[in-house]
């Protein structure tokens, strides 16, 4: 062939071309991430400025009463209004808010209830509990659920698997708090096997010593167990049906005809392919899981973000609420971004293509 564009050209440019789909995917995904983040920030801003009952005005009153001021109340109110920038035009407030978010970063000002502690510091105190319990539970549930679901899908014709599926479905439709209550009642109150109602032994002081860590771990069994049980049941059901549909694919019949061992077929042909939607699903479920985690914190009295949010809501501590709102959106969005960015590692079709 004598023309200039030979088909099997191995230049740097053509190799770069092959990765264009990947670049486009990553770019798209990141763009959507930034857009969603901006939208959530704006939503939070709008919410707290336009909510019925005028929360900002309410918070000024809140601060006044905190300070116990009666004499000179007007001046104090003016002082706070000035300090919070409420006297400025709305679009300036918005721009300042965005600036604080980006360059702060995430500067939400002071907590009203614990004035003048900055909101970020308050969140920082509660964060480790949520992060520790929630992250552990999400990851454990995903791994367990995917593995068990894969096995149940593989043994799709066995009687054991069909009973296991019935049980899993039952767990899956039980609301997380109902399950928590049942486990609490049974394992803690009736049987007394596990402690409950507090994050660690009442006599202990937080420290990095083993007895304390052990106490935290023992107390974490019930809440983590509950979350893992409920969330993994969803993953089990999803993975099982993915496996069943992959097992019906042509390439699986072909793999069997090649005389591959069942283990190889399970690992390399069925599991790997069923895993893709399962990974993608993780990105979406993160947000819902956080909802569940908040409720679990209240039931098990864990001083995490859910508890902080409930307290802040009860006391109308709007700055803290706003901080928590933005923070949870940010966590979940970033989590799902990471999951989505990891997708090409599992799926070569996103990675590159000559089409």
């Amino acid at each position, binding site marked *: *062939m*004598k*023309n200039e*564009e030979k*088909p*099997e*050209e191995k230049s740097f440019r*053509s190799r770069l071309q092959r990765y264009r789909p990947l670049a*486009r995917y990553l770019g798209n995904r990141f763009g959507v991430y930034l857009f969603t983040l901006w939208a959530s920030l704006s939503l939070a801003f709008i919410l707290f400025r336009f909510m019925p009952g005028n929360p900002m005005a309410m918070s000024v009153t809140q601060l006044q009463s905190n300070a116990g001021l009666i004499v000179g109340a007007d001046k104090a109110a003016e002082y706070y209004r000035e300090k919070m920038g409420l006297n400025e035009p709305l679009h300036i407030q918005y721009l300042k808010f965005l600036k604080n978010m980006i360059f702060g970063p995430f500067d939400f000002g002071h907590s009203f209830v614990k004035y003048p502690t900055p909101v970020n510091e308050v969140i920082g105190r509660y964060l480790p509990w949520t992060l520790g319990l929630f992250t552990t539970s999400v990851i454990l549930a995903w791994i367990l659920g995917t593995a068990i679901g894969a096995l149940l899908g593989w043994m799709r014709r066995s009687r054991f698997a069909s009973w296991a599926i019935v049980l899993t479905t039952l767990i899956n439709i039980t609301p997380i708090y109902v399950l928590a209550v049942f486990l609490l009642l049974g394992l803690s109150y009736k049987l007394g096997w596990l402690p409950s109602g507090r994050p660690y032994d009442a006599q202990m002081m937080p420290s990095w010593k083993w007895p304390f860590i052990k106490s935290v771990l023992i107390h974490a069994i019930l809440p983590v167990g509950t979350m893992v049980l409920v969330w993994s049941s969803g993953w089990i059901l999803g993975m099982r049906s993915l496996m069943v549909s992959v097992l019906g694919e042509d390439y699986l019949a072909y793999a069997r005809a090649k005389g591959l061992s069942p283990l190889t077929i399970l690992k390399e042909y069925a599991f790997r392919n069923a895993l893709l939607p399962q990974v993608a699903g993780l990105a979406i479920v993160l947000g819902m899981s956080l909802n569940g985690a908040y409720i679990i914190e209240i039931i098990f009295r864990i001083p995490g973000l859910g508890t902080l949010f409930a307290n802040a809501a009860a006391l109308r501590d709007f700055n803290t609420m706003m901080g928590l709102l933005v923070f949870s959106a940010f966590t979940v969005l970033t989590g799902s971004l990471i999951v989505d960015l990891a997708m090409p590692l599992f799926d070569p079709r996103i990675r590159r293509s*000559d*089409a």
Partner: protein
Amino acid sequence: MADLLTVTSLGQIFGTMTTVQAVDDVSFTMPKEPSIFNLVGESGSGKTTIARIILGLQKPTAGHVLYNNTDIGSKDKQWQTLFHREVQAVFQNPYSVYNPVYKVDRVLQTPIRKFKLSRSQQESREMIESSLRAVDLRPGDVLGKYPHQLSGGQRQRVMLARIHLIQPRLIIADEAVSMVDAAGRVTFLNVLLDFRERLNISTLYITHDLSTAQYLGGNIIVLYKGRIVEAGLTREVTKNPLHPYARLLIQSIPAPDPNKRWAEKLPLNMAEMSLVQSTNRARCLFAERCPNVMDACWQTRPELRKAPTDNTHEVACHLY
């Protein structure tokens, strides 16, 4: 001009970032007299896209289609009704062309209702039954059933009964037999031939299967990567193909005769396309597979022109 269908410089580009030219400057005309035109090409040659454009299911990015000298994009409601009454289709997949929630009967009742073909319940029932019989189906076997209760061949014949009911002037049959068994194919093709002879219905028969096109006769248009490479009378083109692609295509039909086997092994470059697809379309697109390739083939696009052999025959190749 007394043409039934005029297709002029049709073009269709898909995609926004990476584009695919599915149809590239396709023109042809079908006469008023009942006739059969075969549109032949492999998958990806743009033949289904052309069918969808002619049926008004898709807007082309270039060119236009005239039916009875009126653009099919016409906004006139009355004209659109007439157009749909006169131009009908049989699609490839005899399964998904049925809405699974309805009984088969509905496929036959709807056109009667929409095109006001009958005046009474009784009349429409008689029409449906006679149409079913015309395509070799017993009404009792299909009426009152759900599509999944019928076989593929039965379902495709119900589609023909629908055509018989509407009695259009032109049928677009898009790969209509590719999912029907060998034995059912002939029955289907015979119905198309009957339609032309008895009901004066023309057919644009779209296929990748040259042997069925040969059976139908009439005219043929050979497509390659969205372009017409050869056109003419089916008999003439299949007997004496000029374009190297048409020649390759005709030689590759597996002749159902063990005494007429393929003589030589097909050179590899003629069989398969390379991994990297060229985006340069200002040349002959068949060049890399062509046994007669010349310098000119890489540089300029060959135009479709009259073949030297006879004036019903057209070819787009630098050899002629």
